[in-house]
C-alpha cells in the first residue's frame, strides 16, 4: 500500500530508541527481577548503580586505609605493641613506609615486620613515651602461624 499523506496522531520519537534503551539494558543485565528487562525500571536502577560506583571510588580508598590499619594493628599486637606507638616510633626514626606497605610486610614478610616493631619499640622506650610495654608473645587467646611448627 502506498500512503500519499502523513498518518494522523502518530509520533515518531526518533530512529534510535532501540539502541538508547539497549545501552541501559546492557548495564542492567545482571540486576534482579524486572529491573533487568523493563526499561522504565531499569533506567532508575542503572542511574543509582552508576552514582554508587562514582561515590564508591572515594570510599574504596578510605576502606582500604582502614583495612591496612587493622592489619598492621594485628601484626603489632602479635608482638605486644600498639599501632599508635608503632607508627610514632617509625616516624621518629625517619622510616617513611606507608600503611599499604606496612600491611603487606605484616602479612608476607613477618621477620621484617618483627624487626620494624623492634625498631619502633626501641625508639619509643628510649624517648620515654607513655604506654610502652615490653615486647613479647601475643595475648593468650591469639593463635599465630608461628605456633604451628
Amino acid at each position: 500500500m502506498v500512503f500519499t499523506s502523513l498518518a494522523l496522531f502518530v509520533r515518531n520519537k526518533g530512529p534510535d530508541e532501540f539502541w538508547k534503551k539497549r545501552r541501559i539494558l546492557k548495564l542492567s543485565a545482571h540486576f534482579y527481577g524486572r529491573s533487568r528487562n523493563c526499561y522504565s525500571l531499569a533506567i532508575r536502577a542503572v542511574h543509582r548503580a552508576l552514582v554508587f560506583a562514582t561515590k564508591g571510588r572515594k570510599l574504596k580508598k578510605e576502606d582500604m586505609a582502614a583495612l591496612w590499619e587493622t592489619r598492621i594493628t594485628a601484626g603489632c599486637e602479635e608482638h605486644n605493641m600498639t599501632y599508635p606507638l608503632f607508627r610514632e616510633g617509625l616516624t621518629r626514626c625517619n622510616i617513611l613506609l606507608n600503611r599499604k606497605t606496612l600491611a603487606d610486610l605484616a602479612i608476607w614478610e613477618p621477620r621484617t615486620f618483627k624487626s620494624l616493631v623492634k625498631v619502633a619499640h626501641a625508639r619509643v622506650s628510649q624517648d620515654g613515651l607513655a604506654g610502652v610495654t615490653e615486647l613479647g608473645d601475643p595475648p593468650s587467646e591469639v593463635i599465630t602461624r608461628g605456633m604451628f611448627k
Partner: protein
Amino acid sequence: MFVVNKFTALLASLNKFALSGCINKYVLLCGHTEARPLWRSTTVSHLHSLPVTQNMILASSETTEEEEKQSNELISKVNKQLQQQREGRLFAVVHVCGKQFKVTTEDIIIIEGNWAPQIGDKLKLEKVLLVGGSDFSLIGRPILSSELVSVHATVIEKALSHIKTIFRKKKRQQYQRINFKRTPHTMLRINSIQVKPEVNVKKAVEGLEGRIF
C-alpha cells in the same frame, strides 16, 4: 636464618635503643646494634657540613664495646652472604610516582598517570625504602643509598585504564552529568634487585658512583 636469630638475641639483651646506621647515615640495618642517639641521624642540618666519620665519633661514647663488637659481627655476616651471593630472592619497597610498591624480581607494577619513560626504556629506581631477604633486611631512613642497592626495571607497556564512568545525579532536580575517563597506565617489569656487599663500608668520598667527570 642465622642472622635473624642473632638479632633477636642481641636486642633482647640491650636495654637501650639499639639501632643505628651504617656509614650511610640513612641506612638502618636490622640486627645492627651500634647504639647511638637516634635523633642524631634525623637532624639533617649538620650532616651536610660534618663528614660522617665525625658523626659516628660524637656518639661513640654511648656505645659499649660488646655492642660494637656484636653489631660488627652481624654486618660482616651480611656482607659475607652478599659476597657469596647466597642471599636468595630479595624484595624491595620502592617509591615511584608518589606510591610505594613492594616488589621482587620478575614483578610487574602499574604506574598510573602521565609518565615520561617510553616502552623499552631501562630504569634504575632510586628511591628504595627497604630491601629484605630471608636472613636480613636493610631499612632506609628514609631511603637507602643507590650506591648500595640497585633496583632495575624496564617499561614493557603503555596503555590506558578501563573506562571509568563518572555519573552525577540529583534526584528531582533535572540535574544529571555523565563523563568517561581513561587514565594512562605504564607497566614496569622489575628485572633485578642487587645489594652490594658494602654495608657499613666507610668510603672516603660518597656520591661518586655514576658521576661522569
